[in-house]
């Protein structure tokens, strides 16, 4: 059996989307599965890449789509990739689709609409919707391998362990995995604090700490 991971983050290899998907595929490999991975943005750059994307979906026994939440929904390149897959894929094989969504807030519930969109994609592409895992607090992973991301993400690993067990046995993502993934990684106040501090540190490194509130288009408005 073969699973393909489609990484929908423009950050590619360094993304939290890749970390989550690779961990899940690693667990499946331990259960005897083969795996492949593709980066959506890279695949969309050429006709050959798009063909390879569709071929990878056609050849898979399980499709795992992992992406970050952009403006409450799928990043634009993921929408384009879905368009291509719906248009080009071979009809007939109802391959299961699982989605992993991560966002930069603390509430996993902010991923809900993106998951509903994935379900609609599965319907239109003739794939079988096997559920999604929604993560809030994606920056806690920050593109690191999950095994190196510390205790804060223990529920994330546990969720993916459970999901891998079910998927390997031919079952959809279980509700327990959904619940574990959705548990807040920290209290909201702490995530606020860590996040705000992180932005300031990055701005300081780039020597723009005093310009964080800049309003470059405000003058044109006046």
């Amino acid at each position, binding site marked *: 059996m073969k699973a393909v991971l489609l990484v929908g983050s423009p950050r590619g290899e360094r993304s939290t989307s890749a970390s989550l998907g690779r961990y899940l595929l690693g667990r499946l490999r331990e259960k005897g599965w083969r795996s492949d991975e593709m980066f959506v943005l890279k695949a969309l750059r050429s006709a050959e890449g798009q063909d390879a994307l569709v071929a990878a979906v056609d050849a898979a026994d399980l499709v795992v789509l992992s992406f970050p939440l952009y403006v409450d*929904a799928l990043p634009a390149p993921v929408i384009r990739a879905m368009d291509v897959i719906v248009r080009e894929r071979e009809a007939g094989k109802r391959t299961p689709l699982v989605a992993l969504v991560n966002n930069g807030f603390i*509430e996993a519930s*902010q991923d809900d609409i993106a998951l509903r969109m994935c379900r609609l994609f599965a319907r239109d592409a003739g794939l079988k919707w096997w559920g999604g895992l929604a993560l809030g607090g994606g920056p806690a992973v920050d593109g690191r391998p999950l095994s190196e991301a510390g205790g804060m993400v223990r529920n994330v690993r546990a969720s993916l362990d459970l999901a891998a067990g079910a998927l390997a046995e031919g079952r959809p993502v279980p509700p327990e995995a959904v619940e574990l993934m959705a548990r807040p990684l920290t209290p*909201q106040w702490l995530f606020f604090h860590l*996040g705000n501090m992180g932005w300031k540190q*990055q701005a300081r490194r780039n020597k723009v700490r005093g*310009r964080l509130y800049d309003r470059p288009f405000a003058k044109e*408005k006046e």
Partner: protein
Amino acid sequence: MKALILDGSEGDEMAPLRDAAAELLSTRGHQVEAVALRDKNIAACTGCFGCWVRTPGECVIKDDGYAVARSFVTAEVLVLLTPIVFGGYSYQLKKALDRSICFALPFFQNLGGEMHHFRRYPDIEQRMVAIGRLSRPDEEQAKVFAELVRRNGRNFQPRALSSAVTLAGEDHETAVRTVRGALAQAGVAE
């Protein structure tokens, strides 16, 4: 008063709605800019957060997305037109919207119990209208679209927000009625 219409179609299928919106807004005294996004060179957001921590308020990619962002911020009325794709916006429209995070500050606030970013331009009042077009009746897609627009409203925080769904093949009068209704709901036209 400026009004910006962003047309997210790949072809000319949104033209009746775009023309109807432009006409209604013009008769209300708005200075209308209609942008067919498919004709613009707008790269996908790379998720680098440079618009927050390298060049605050401006995307580091200097393509047509820059001018669209400028028009977006300075318009009093925003009209988003899109074929509905998997319940959401088209690739063309989403590419432009993904580049809009420069309108937010990186810092967080709690809105109704949920985390959101502070607005960079909280003093600029906007009215936002999103109109989606379905190629065939599809209740689930229509529901997801309405929910998405509502959720976008929490982030963009416009003064007024409305959404509407149209069907392919509708005639000009229906298009005008739909646009007028959506604009009226957002307090733009009666």
